[in-house]
């Protein structure tokens, strides 16, 4: 298979996974934008553009066209499409209506990898694609791990409240009914420490061999979605997608 064909396939894998994550909560966001337009937020700490509901809605919609350009377009269209993904995700990271959703942070950094893939010279795809993908994914997990290096997470208190007390989904509701509060706190403590250890391990991606890292990261992503909420899939889908797409590039070797 020639390099141009492999690049096209890798771009489609990465873009498809990116879009699945981005639009995984489309029903929620359509309702959210409807309320935002009806009742816009007026907060003085952010500039007007970062409060305007139409900016948030436009940023959310743009990846449809950008994805089409990446899927069907030539080099220039792909570059423009990748840049549009990155800009849309950047807006998501900083707009008052969207900023708290980690989907936009992971989408921003994975869009940068897609932009690299659209722009890179042929001879670089296999030499730098897999490592760059691991760097991006490791960086995201590093952010999660560093944030949890606090007494609140190491003791398990944060997850005790966030998951074991506040979540009504399985298995948390079942656990609450089945075990004592002290047992629940002990489970939360070890759950939290396991998450921290896992994220720290995944943040070593640049040093790891590629295929084992991809398997480990995808397994961890699956476990995180199962243990949290399906909505977490929207945050993590783009990470899995760039890892798979980068593995595809190794076929050029």
């Amino acid at each position, binding site marked *: 298979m020639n390099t141009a064909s492999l690049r096209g396939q890798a771009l489609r894998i990465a873009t498809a996974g990116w879009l699945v994550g981005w639009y995984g909560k489309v029903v929620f966001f359509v309702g959210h934008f409807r309320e935002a337009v009806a009742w816009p*937020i007026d907060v003085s700490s952010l500039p007007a553009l970062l409060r305007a509901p139409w900016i948030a809605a436009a940023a959310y919609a743009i990846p449809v066209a950008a994805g089409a350009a990446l899927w069907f377009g030539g080099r220039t269209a792909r570059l423009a499409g990748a840049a549009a993904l990155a800009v849309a995700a950047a807006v998501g990271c900083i707009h008052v209506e969207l900023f708290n959703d980690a989907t936009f*942070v992971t989408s921003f950094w994975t869009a940068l990898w897609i932009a690299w893939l659209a*722009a890179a010279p042929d001879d670089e795809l296999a*030499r730098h694609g897999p490592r760059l993908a691991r760097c991006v994914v490791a960086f995201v997990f590093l*952010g999660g791990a560093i944030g949890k290096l606090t007494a609140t997470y190491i003791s398990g208190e944060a997850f005790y409240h*966030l998951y074991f007390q506040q979540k009504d989904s399985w298995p948390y509701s079942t656990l609450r009914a089945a075990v004592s509060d002290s047992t629940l706190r002990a489970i939360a403590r070890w759950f939290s420490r396991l998450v921290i250890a896992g994220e720290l391990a995944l943040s070593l991606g640049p040093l790891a061999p590629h295929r084992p890292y991809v398997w480990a990261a995808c397994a961890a992503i699956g476990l995180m979605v199962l243990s949290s909420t399906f909505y977490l899939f929207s945050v993590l889908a783009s990470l899995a997608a760039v890892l798979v797409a980068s593995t595809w590039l190794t076929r050029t070797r």
Partner: protein
Amino acid sequence: MEGGRASGAATALYAAVATGGLLLVLLPLSPPLQRRFLANHHLDPPSTASWIAIGLLPKMYGGRHEFWMSPEPLSEFLRADPRLAPFKVSHYWVNHSPGRAVRLDTTREAAGRAGATTYLRLESSYGSESLTSTYVVHAAAGRIEVRAAP
């Protein structure tokens, strides 16, 4: 074989990830950086540039974040035990960005129609730093007005 000469695009992405990674690694060691992160979580950045730079960094499920919503201001005394409050107090832990509470997400339309006023208290901490913010969120004239409260 990985490695070898990198193009400008690859170099730029390596540099962006390395710079972001360095900021993340410095976070537990730097109280000023911790204060900037906490300010972002509370929707109260010192500047738009700071809001953008920190907004792009991965920081999910990090630090301690709680918020309280009530129809009357929540004093320190009542915050210690909201059950004593003679009004309804909603209290939540959140994984990050408790500043999202100013949007009244689940009650925004109802609050808007009723012209309701909501008092918010946000508490976050990371490392040696902590931040408490209070906001008054008032629905009026087709907008949700958010004001910092003393």
